[in-house]
Structures are given as structure tokens and as C-alpha cells.
């Protein structure tokens, strides 16, 4: 099937066009919009925390701020933007003529937008947006403790956005498995495609469980009886973290893949230890299904030994990946352009997040760090200093391909410098604050605790980050230098196309949407949530297997 849209109707094409590049770009733009919005909430929070006492917001508004900041960043920015890169680049990199199931992806984009708006509509209702943290733990999120519509709109926002991400992941997986050019064996795919494949498989397995848990939570809020049995809240935590840990890798691997591509090209070499890297991605994917309870070390009754073991085992594939990247750098002809600067900064910055991860993977140490700012610092060093540095490395690297224009080098360098300074200034003090006992998710702290200086530094750092993002936006708006098809000497197929690439021929027939059915609910027993999760999981696992087998 060829192009069905009339030319010269850009809005219509954005809304309904099935060209994978347009879907990818729009998804990325929507996600970036949510990044700016979520970032604004973060700056507000840091402003409140800059000194002891309540100056800017009320306690409940602060709760809404951190809830919506976390939810926005995770459900509406990092995950969709990770998939958006795949939507745009995967068909080009594997030599496919289009995205398999591009209508899935388009539907996913709509669902993402709808979900985001639903979630943010909470700010409009009385009492403000949802306040039950990004994880929505029961009983904090139940009808008694979180009354009002905002919590419900949060739940449905999460469901819609997650469903959209599932559809996108399905389309990318099908493309990777069924649409590769002849001769493109799986072991010849660019490492970014491997990262996307593993990411999408984890998405297909983990996200249905979140949808199941959210629907169960909503039913519990309406009629009760789902998580009310003894152990119900722990059941919710298990379901949530079964999604919540794989999603950490979903939010990380595509950017690791981007960093690897950048390091390869700007070292002028092939990837060192390509097969080792693929192997380590496989190990990560398989272990990702069995480490979730390390988020629950302090919950009574969790077999901490096993989860500490599986979590600590992750250092082996992580180390392999580092050696692979360092080995690529070694002896290369290194060009320090902006993408490479971001990639190198990623290597150093993410190391802090990774090493502090080994620390909290130990139950004894985690008991001390749990619920403190140490955890906040740790996951921001992985998600901001890891994923977002990788994201910007990818953005600077692929921007010429996406737009046909080069981003300004001088503004880019300023962006890197400000981002590195801001990130460390914001989050390094938080390790110290957590160590001294400052709890996370608090709007105020006693003046006598002596935390004022470190908090002030951290807040200044967050302004520096905001400034650096502003520099990027300016750079994107003002830079006009034409790029040509291959400004970097890239090694992968997308650089053999013009910048931006021409219209793709979408050859896929209309594809049936897969309904992720929710099993019938047995309320009043603790079997209810298990049944929901089980149903969703079995359907998802079966579908993933069948898709993969095609």
C-alpha cells in the first residue's frame, strides 16, 4: 500500500500518516515536550528545597510535583523517546522498506498523547494532581487515602500511555524480526538495533503487567476488594516492580545503543567485542525478568538473598559493555565532536550510577539507604546521567539525518559543559544528604539539620541543567548549516540515505490490533490481582512468542 494522504496537508499527515519517520519524529517531539514539562516540575521542587521552611508550594502541591515529575519522565518521556528512536532508525538501519505494523505505531502515538493529557488533566481538578508517587503504591493510592478524580486520571493516563508504548514496541519487534534486508542476519545488525530488539522484548513482557496492576488498582478504588486482603499491598508492589525493573532497562538500552554507535563512528573503528555486547544484552534481558524484588528489600517476607544474587550478577554484563566501549575507544582516531563528548560524558557519569547500584543491590546497605536521598541520587545518575546523556549523544549524532541540518558545534559544547556541571552539582550533594539521613519525598526539612548548604547547591545545579536544556533548544532553533547525507562518516545503512531520508513506501497491510485482554476479576480474594497479571502476562508472552516466530 502506498501513500494514502494527499500531499500538502502536514497536520493530517502528522495525525494519520503511516510513514515511520514521521511517527518517530512526532513521538520524539511529544516526549520532548513532556520532558520540558516534567523538568519544570523538578525545578519547582528544587526551588522549594533550596532552603528549610515552606516558601513556594504547599505540602500537598509538593506531593503532586514529585508524583507528576516522576510519572512524566518515566511514562511520558524516557520510555516513549527510547521507542521513538527505534521507530525512526530501525527500518533504516536494517534496510527495511518501512515499519511492519506502522498503524500499530501510529495508534501508539495517539494513545501516548491521550495518556499524557489524561495524566496531566489532574492539575485541573480540585485538590490538584495525583500525589501517590510515580509507583502509585496501594494503600496510599486507594480511595481512602487518595480520594478524588486526579488519582483516577493518573491511573488511566498510565494505562493509555503504556498501551501505546506496547504497540510501538510490537511494531519495532516485528520490523526487526520480519523486515530485515536479505543478508542482514541478526548478528550483522547494528548494535543499536540489538539494543532496540532487547528493549522491545522486555517491553512486551513487562508492560502488560503494569496495565493489569493499574486496572486492578482502579477497580479497587471503585469497588474495593482487590488489594484489601492481608498481603494485598505487597502483591501490588510485586506486580508494579515486575514492570518497574525491566522498564529501567527499557529506558536505558536504546541510549546505550546510541552511545555505542557514536563511539564507533567517532573512533573510526568497528565495535570492539560486538558478539560480547550482544551476549551481554541477552544476559540483561533474561535477568531483567528476575530482579524486581530488589526494589522491595525492606518489605518483610521477600527472599532477599536471591534478588541480591541476581541483581549483583548484573555487574557482569554491565562490565562487558563497558569493556566493549572502552576497547572501541582504544587505539581509535578519536574526534571530539559534540555527540562524542556526550558519549564520553555518559561513560563517566553513568559509572557513578552503576557503581552506586552495586551498593544498593546489597540488602544490608540498602536497608540504610532505602527511602533516603541516596536512592534519589543513584537513579538520577542512571537515568539522567546515563539515559539522557545517551539521548543527547544520539540527538546530536542523528539530528543531521532527521532534519538535514547540523546542530551548532559551539552551542553544543556549551550544552555539554553546562549539563555535566549541572548534573553533578545537583545530584552529588544528594548522596551526602541521603547519607546524613534526609528522606526523599519531603517538602521541608528542619533548619537545625545542617542540610541547607547542600540543598542550595543541589538547587543551583538544577537551574544549570535547565539552562543547558535551554541552550539545546536555542541551538535546535537557530542552527541552519546543511548537513549532507553523511556528515560523520557513519557505518550504518541510514547514512546511505539522503538527509532527511525520502518518503518510505509502507507496504504493510492493515494489521489487526492485539487486544491485551484482562482476565475476569475475582474480587475479595488475593487471587484477583494474580489472575489479572497472569492473564495479561500469558497473552503477552504468547503474542511475543508468536510474533517472534513469524
Amino acid at each position, binding site marked *: 500500500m502506498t501513500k494514502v494522504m494527499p500531499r500538502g496537508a502536514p497536520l493530517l499527515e502528522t495525525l494519520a500518516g503511516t510513514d515511520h519517520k514521521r511517527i518517530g519524529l512526532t513521538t520524539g517531539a511529544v516526549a520532548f515536550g513532556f520532558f520540558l514539562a516534567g523538568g519544570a516540575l523538578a525545578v519547582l521542587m528544587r526551588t522549594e528545597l533550596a532552603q528549610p521552611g515552606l516558601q513556594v508550594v504547599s505540602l500537598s502541591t509538593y506531593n503532586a510535583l514529585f508524583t507528576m515529575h516522576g510519572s512524566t519522565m518515566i511514562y511520558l518521556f524516557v520510555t516513549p523517546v527510547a521507542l521513538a528512536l527505534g521507530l525512526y532508525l530501525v527500518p533504516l538501519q536494517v534496510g527495511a522498506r518501512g515499519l511492519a505494523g506502522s498503524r500499530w505505531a501510529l495508534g501508539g502515538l495517539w494513545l501516548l498523547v491521550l495518556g499524557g493529557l489524561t495524566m496531566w488533566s489532574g492539575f485541573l481538578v480540585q485538590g490538584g494532581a495525583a500525589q501517590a508517587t510515580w509507583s502509585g503504591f496501594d494503600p496510599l493510592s486507594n480511595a481512602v487515602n487518595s480520594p478524588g478524580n486526579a488519582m483516577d486520571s493518573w491511573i488511566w493516563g498510565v494505562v493509555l500511555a503504556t498501551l501505546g508504548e506496547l504497540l510501538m514496541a510490537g511494531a519495532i519487534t516485528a520490523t526487526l524480526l520480519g523486515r530485515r534486508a536479505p543478508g542482514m*542476519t*541478526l*548478528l550483522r545488525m547494528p548494535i543499536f538495533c540489538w539494543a532496540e530488539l532487547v528493549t522491545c522484548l522486555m517491553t512486551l513482557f513487562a508492560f502488560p503487567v503494569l496495565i493489569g496492576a493499574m486496572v486492578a488498582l482502579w477497580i479497587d478504588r471503585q469497588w474495593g476488594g482487590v488489594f484489601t486482603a492481608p498481603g494485598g499491598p505487597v502483591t501490588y508492589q510485586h506486580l508494579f516492580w515486575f514492570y518497574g525493573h525491566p522498564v529501567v532497562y527499557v529506558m536505558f538500552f536504546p541510549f546505550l545503543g546510541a552511545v555505542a554507535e557514536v563511539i564507533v563512528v567517532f573512533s573510526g573503528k568497528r565495535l570492539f567485542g560486538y558478539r560480547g555486547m550482544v551476549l551481554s544484552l541477552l544476559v540483561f534481558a*533474561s535477568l531483567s525478568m528476575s530482579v524486581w524484588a530488589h526494589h522491595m528489600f525492606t518489605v518483610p517476607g521477600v*527472599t532477599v538473598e536471591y534478588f541480591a544474587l541476581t541483581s549483583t550478577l548484573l555487574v557482569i554484563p554491565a562490565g562487558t559493555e563497558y569493556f566493549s566501549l572502552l576497547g572501541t575507544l582504544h587505539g581509535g582516531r578519536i574526534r571530539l565532536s559534540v555527540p562524542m563528548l556526550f558519549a564520553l560524558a555518559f561513560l563517566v557519569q553513568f559509572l557513578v550510577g552503576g557503581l552506586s547500584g552495586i551498593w544498593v543491590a546489597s540488602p544490608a546497605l540498602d536497608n540504610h539507604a532505602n527511602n533516603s536521598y541516596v536512592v534519589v541520587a543513584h537513579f538520577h545518575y542512571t537515568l539522567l546521567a546515563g539515559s539522557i546523556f545517551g539521548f543527547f549523544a544520539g540527538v546530536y549524532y542523528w539530528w543531521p539525518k532527521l532534519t538535514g541540518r547540523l546542530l551548532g558545534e559551539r552551542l553544543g559544547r556549551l550544552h555539554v559543559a553546562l549539563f555535566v556541571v549541572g548534573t553533578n552539582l545537583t545530584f552529588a550533594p544528594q548522596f551526602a544528604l541521603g547519607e546524613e539521613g534526609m528522606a526523599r519525598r519531603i517538602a521541608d526539612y528542619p533548619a537545625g539539620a545542617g542540610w541547607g548548604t547542600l540543598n542550595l547547591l543541589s538547587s543551583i545545579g538544577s537551574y544549570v541543567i535547565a539552562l543547558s536544556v535551554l541552550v539545546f533548544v536555542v541551538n535546535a532553533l537557530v542552527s541552519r548549516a546543511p548537513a549532507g547525507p553523511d556528515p560523520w562518516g557513519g557505518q550504518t545503512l541510514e547514512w546511505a540515505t539522503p538527509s532527511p531520508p525520502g518518503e518510505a513506501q509502507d507496504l504493510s497491510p492493515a494489521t489487526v490490533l492485539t487486544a491485551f485482554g484482562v482476565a475476569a476479576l475475582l474480587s475479595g480474594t488475593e487471587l484477583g490481582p494474580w489472575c489479572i497479571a497472569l492473564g495479561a502476562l500469558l497473552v503477552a508472552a504468547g503474542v511475543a512468542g508468536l510474533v517472534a516466530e513469524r
Partner: protein
Amino acid sequence: MIAVAFWGALYLAGARRARGWPRARSAAFAGGLALLAVALASPLDARAERLLSAHMAQHLLLGLAAPLLVAAGAPVRLALAALGPRGRRWVARALHALPLRPATGWAAFTAVMLGTHLTGVYELALRDPLIHAAEHLAYVLAGLLFWVPLVGADPLPHPPGPAAKLAWLMAAMPPMGLVGARLLTGGVAYPSYPSLADQRTAAGLMWGAGSLLLAAALVWIVFAALVREEQRQRRREAAR
């Protein structure tokens, strides 16, 4: 025990007749049979009467570890190599008739895992030795159905590709995780095993050890399949 000895003798006879049969395959098959023997006829079986954790270890051996090694021993390939033309035709017909696809194997494995652990079947089996024996047989058969298409040592009419193997192996982790999570979070699951502490250990075994075993198998099987695919493509290109 007799069955284990019988299959062992049969395999040995086959390996003698088929020239140049790889030792690694024989070793894998012997290892699989040894694990079966350990599960059914060692002190573990006696312990399993009293301790849920020992019982779970037994189930993991029967349903996961032993069938994996047996499948890696490529018994069907050996039968094809060792038998005469009539026997071969018979084996080939059986291969086409049997549902040796990952979807069937995964469904069987999931059904047996969840069906025996999350329902009343577990208690029933403890009371009736016949049902217990049937349960153990179901583990071994489901394990074989699951592993044979995924290991890929035996020649099959419809072998799955590397990515399909990856997906099916990942799909096998959630069922075991769910059994583990149920045993971890709920109260006493089986009246015959009242100790909650031991139930937690059993859950950890099911979850941790089971997942680790699957993870190791995943890396080995998928990577071997990837390399094989790449080698095939290189041969194809060299022939051009």
C-alpha cells in the same frame, strides 16, 4: 529407575552403532538421566516428603534441568543415525506427528507449572501416590516438549529462529516467577507443608534458581542459534 536404565542402555547401544557420535552429546544425555535418578531415587525424594523446599528442588530437576540435558543429548538424531531405513521412516513420521513446536512446549510447561502449584492438584498428589507419579511424569514430558524445539539438537520439521527462541525462553520465566511470588506473599499454600519459612525458601528456589537456569540456557541456546544463522549466511554468500 528401570525406565532410566532402559533409556540409558538404549542410548548407549545407539551411540555404539552410530560412528563418530559426539561424546559431549552422550555426556549431556547421561547427565540428564543422572539428574532424573537424583530427583526420584536419592535422599532428596525422602526429604521432599517433609520439606517443601526439597520438593521444589525435585520439581525443578524433573521439569527443567533433566529434560534440558536429555534434549541436548539429541536422542532423536541418534535414533535416526543408528536405525535402519524402516526405523528411520517411522521416527520421521513420529516427528511430523508430534507437536514439537515452542508454542506447544511453552504452553505445556506453563500449564503444568501453574496447574500443579497454584491449584488443589498439589495437595491431591501428596495424598495419592499414583497422582504424584503422574505429576512427575507430566513435568518430565512438559520439560521435554519445551526444551526439544528450543535446544535444537534434534532435527525438527519446523525449527524456530534465534529470536523466537529468545522470546520463548523469556516467556518461560514469568510462570515460575508467579509461582514463586504466590508462595512468597501468600499464607501457607499447602496444608501438608505448614512451615512458612521453608515455603519462602521453596519460593526462592523456584524463582531464583529456576530463573538463573533459564537465563543460562537462554544465553547458550540463543547465542548458538545466532552464530549458526550467521555461518549459514556466510556459506550461502561463499557459494555465490
